[in-house]
C-alpha cells in the first residue's frame, strides 16, 4: 500500500519505490487513463489514427531507452534504430522461418536479439567518446541497414511479412483475433509494456547505478579515480538502452506485420529517435515518449498538408532549440519556462507588451545582421 512521506514540506506518497506528490499522482493517473482510452477517442475522430499514435509511442519508447545514455552518461548515440531494427527483423525471421506464432515468444526473441546486438555494438563503439562514438554508432546502424537491404533472405528492400504458419497474424493468448480487434489488443499490449518499461527506467534512475552513470557523464576522469570501471558501466547502460529499442522493434513488427529496412533501420530513424528525446525533454523520464508521439503525429499530419513536411520538422526543431531547450515536458512542468511565463503574465498582464518589444527588437537585430552578411557576400566589404 502507498506510504505517506514528506518531500520538502509537501506531502508525497511512496509506492513500490515510486515517490509522487498529489499533483504528480493526478497527472500520472490521468496519463494512464488517457493512454487506455486513446483507441476510443481515435475511433471517434478522423484526423487521429490509432496506428499513428501507436507508432509514435513505440518510437518514443526507443527514445526513453536512448535517454539513459543521453541524460546520464552524456553520450549521443546516432544509431539507436539499429536495435529497433534488430528487434523488428528478429521477430520477422522467427515468425517466417521458425514458424513462431505466439506474440510473447516473438517479443522474447526480439529482446534476445537486440541484447546481443547492443552488447556487440557497445563493445566496439564504446572505445571512443563524443563525436567518434556517435559516428561509430551511426556506422554500425548503416551496416545493419545495408545487410537488411542486401540479403534476399531478409526480403531486401521489399522487407519481410510476418505471417507465421497458417495463421494470418501472430497469436495473442493463443488466439487469432480479427484484424480490428488485433490492432486494439496489441495497442493495449504496447501500453502495458510501456508502463512497465517506464517503471523499470524510473527505478534505474533512482538507483546507485544511476549515480555511477552520472559520475561518468559529468567527470569521466574522476569517475575512474573513485574506482569505477568506466567502460563497463557505460556498456551496461548501452545494452539496457538497446533492450528498450529491441522491445519496441518487436512490438512494431507484431503490430505492422511487415518490416522494411527504411522504416526500421535507416539512419534517419536514428535521427528521429534522438530528436524525440530532445523534443519531449531529455532531462525527464516521460519526455522522450511524448516527443515520440508528437513527432510522428507531426510528420503524419504534415504529409497530408504539404509535400514540404520535412521543412515543418526543421522549423519545429529550430523553435525548440532556441525557445524551449528543455523540451515539451521540461518546459511545462512546475518551474519550467512555460509556468514561469504564465505566472508572470497573471501577475502583470502588461508584461506582454514588453515581451513583444523584446522579441521585435531581437528579430530586428537579427534581420539587420543577416542583411549585412548578405550584402557582404554579394557585394563584398566596402
Amino acid at each position: 500500500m502507498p506510504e505517506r512521506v514528506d518531500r520538502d514540506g509537501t506531502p508525497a506518497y511512496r509506492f513500490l519505490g515510486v515517490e509522487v506528490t498529489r499533483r504528480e499522482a493526478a497527472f500520472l493517473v490521468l496519463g494512464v487513463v488517457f493512454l487506455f482510452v486513446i483507441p476510443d477517442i481515435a475511433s471517434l475522430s478522423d484526423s487521429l489514427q490509432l496506428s499513428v499514435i501507436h507508432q509514435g509511442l513505440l518510437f518514443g519508447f526507443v527514445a526513453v531507452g536512448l535517454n539513459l545514455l543521453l541524460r546520464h552518461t552524456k553520450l549521443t548515440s546516432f544509431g539507436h534504430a539499429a536495435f529497433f531494427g534488430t528487434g523488428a527483423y528478429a521477430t520477422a525471421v522467427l515468425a517466417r522461418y521458425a514458424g513462431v506464432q505466439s506474440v510473447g515468444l516473438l517479443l522474447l526473441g526480439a529482446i534476445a536479439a537486440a541484447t546481443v546486438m547492443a552488447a556487440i555494438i557497445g563493445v566496439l563503439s564504446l572505445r571512443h567518446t563524443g563525436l567518434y562514438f556517435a559516428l561509430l554508432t551511426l556506422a554500425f546502424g548503416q551496416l545493419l541497414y545495408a545487410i537488411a537491404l542486401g540479403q534476399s533472405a531478409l526480403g531486401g528492400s521489399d522487407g519481410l511479412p510476418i505471417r507465421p504458419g497458417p495463421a494470418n497474424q501472430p497469436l495473442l493468448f493463443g488466439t487469432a483475433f480479427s484484424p480490428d480487434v488485433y490492432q486494439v489488443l496489441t495497442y493495449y499490449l504496447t501500453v502495458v509494456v510501456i508502463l512497465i518499461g517506464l517503471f523499470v527506467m524510473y527505478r534505474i534512475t533512482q538507483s546507485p547505478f544511476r549515480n555511477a552513470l552520472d559520475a561518468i557523464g559529468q567527470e569521466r576522469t574522476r569517475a575512474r579515480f573513485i574506482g569505477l570501471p568506466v567502460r563497463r558501466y557505460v556498456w551496461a547502460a548501452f545494452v539496457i538502452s538497446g533492450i528498450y529499442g529491441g522491445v519496441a522493434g518487436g512490438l512494431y513488427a507484431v503490430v505492422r506485420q511487415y518490416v522494411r529496412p527504411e522504416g526500421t533501420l535507416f539512419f534517419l530513424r536514428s535521427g528521429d529517435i534522438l530528436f524525440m528525446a530532445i523534443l519531449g525533454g531529455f532531462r525527464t523520464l516521460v519526455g522522450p515518449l511524448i516527443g515520440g508521439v508528437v513527432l510522428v503525429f507531426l510528420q503524419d499530419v504534415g504529409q497530408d498538408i504539404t509535400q514540404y513536411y520535412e521543412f515543418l520538422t526543421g522549423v519545429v526543431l529550430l523553435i525548440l532549440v532556441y525557445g524551449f531547450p528543455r523540451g515539451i515536458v521540461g518546459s511545462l512542468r512546475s518551474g519550467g519556462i512555460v509556468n514561469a511565463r504564465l505566472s508572470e503574465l497573471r501577475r502583470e498582464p502588461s508584461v506582454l507588451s514588453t515581451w513583444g518589444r523584446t522579441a521585435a527588437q531581437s528579430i530586428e537585430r537579427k534581420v539587420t545582421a543577416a542583411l549585412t552578411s548578405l550584402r557582404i557576400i554579394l557585394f563584398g566589404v566596402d
Partner: protein
Amino acid sequence: MLEARNLRKSFGELVATDDITLEFGKEEGELVFIVGPNGAGKTTFINLLTGFLSPDEGSIVLDGDDITGMSANGRVDAGIARSFQVVKVFEEMTVRENLRTVVLTEQGKTWSLFSMADGHEEVESQVEELVEKFRLEDAADTVAEELPHGDRKLLDVAMSFGLDPDYLLLDEPTSGVSTREKEYVIETIVEVGRAEGVTTVTIEHDMDIVTEYADRVVALHQGTVHGVGPPTMLETDDELRRLLLGVGDDE
C-alpha cells in the same frame, strides 16, 4: 608500503621523471610532502603512482605486489586514492550526492539497479560523517559548481577520503585557496588523515605549511630526487632553498 622503484617517464625529449626510487607508509599514517620547483616532475610522479600515466621503466609496488600494470580504478580498490590539482568533482551533483556516489562506489553498491541510491543506511551514515568531518554542513545541499573555491577543494579531498584509502596522494590541495582558507583546508586534511591512519603524500608549494605539518619531506628537482628528510631540511639545505625560492642560475 607503497614503493616506487626506478620510475622513468619521458614525454618526447623531456624526461619528467628520471629514475625515482621512493617509499611511503613505512610508518603507517605518515604525512609526506613533496616539494620542488615548477617542472620538477611532482605531478608526473603522482600520475605514475595512481595509474593516470604508465611509466616507461621501473615498477610500482604495493605491500610487496607489483601493481605497475594495474588499472587506475583497480588501484583505487587496492587502497590508493588521489585528488587533482584542478578540482575534479561531479559538477551537477550536490555536495551530498558527490559524497554518496563515492561511498556507494567504495562499498561496491553501484551495480545495484533497483535499490534506492539514498536508501543504504551504512552509506548515508558515512556520508554524514564525511560532511561533518570536512565541515561542509552548510554547503551539503549546494550543487558543486556553485560552491566557493575553498569548499570545492574540501569536497575534492573529502571525496578522496570517502574512498577509505590507505594511501592518499594530493596534488596541491591548497592551490588557488586564499591564505586564510589554506590553513583550514590543510588542517582538516592532517586531522582526518591522522585520525584514520592514512598515509598522505601531498604536493605543496607553501613552505610554512610543509614545515609545520610534515613528518617527512621529499624534494624533487628536474625529475630526480634531490633529497629526503625531516622538514628541518628546508632550513639547512642551502641548495634546496635556492631551488625552491627560485634565486640562482636555475630560474
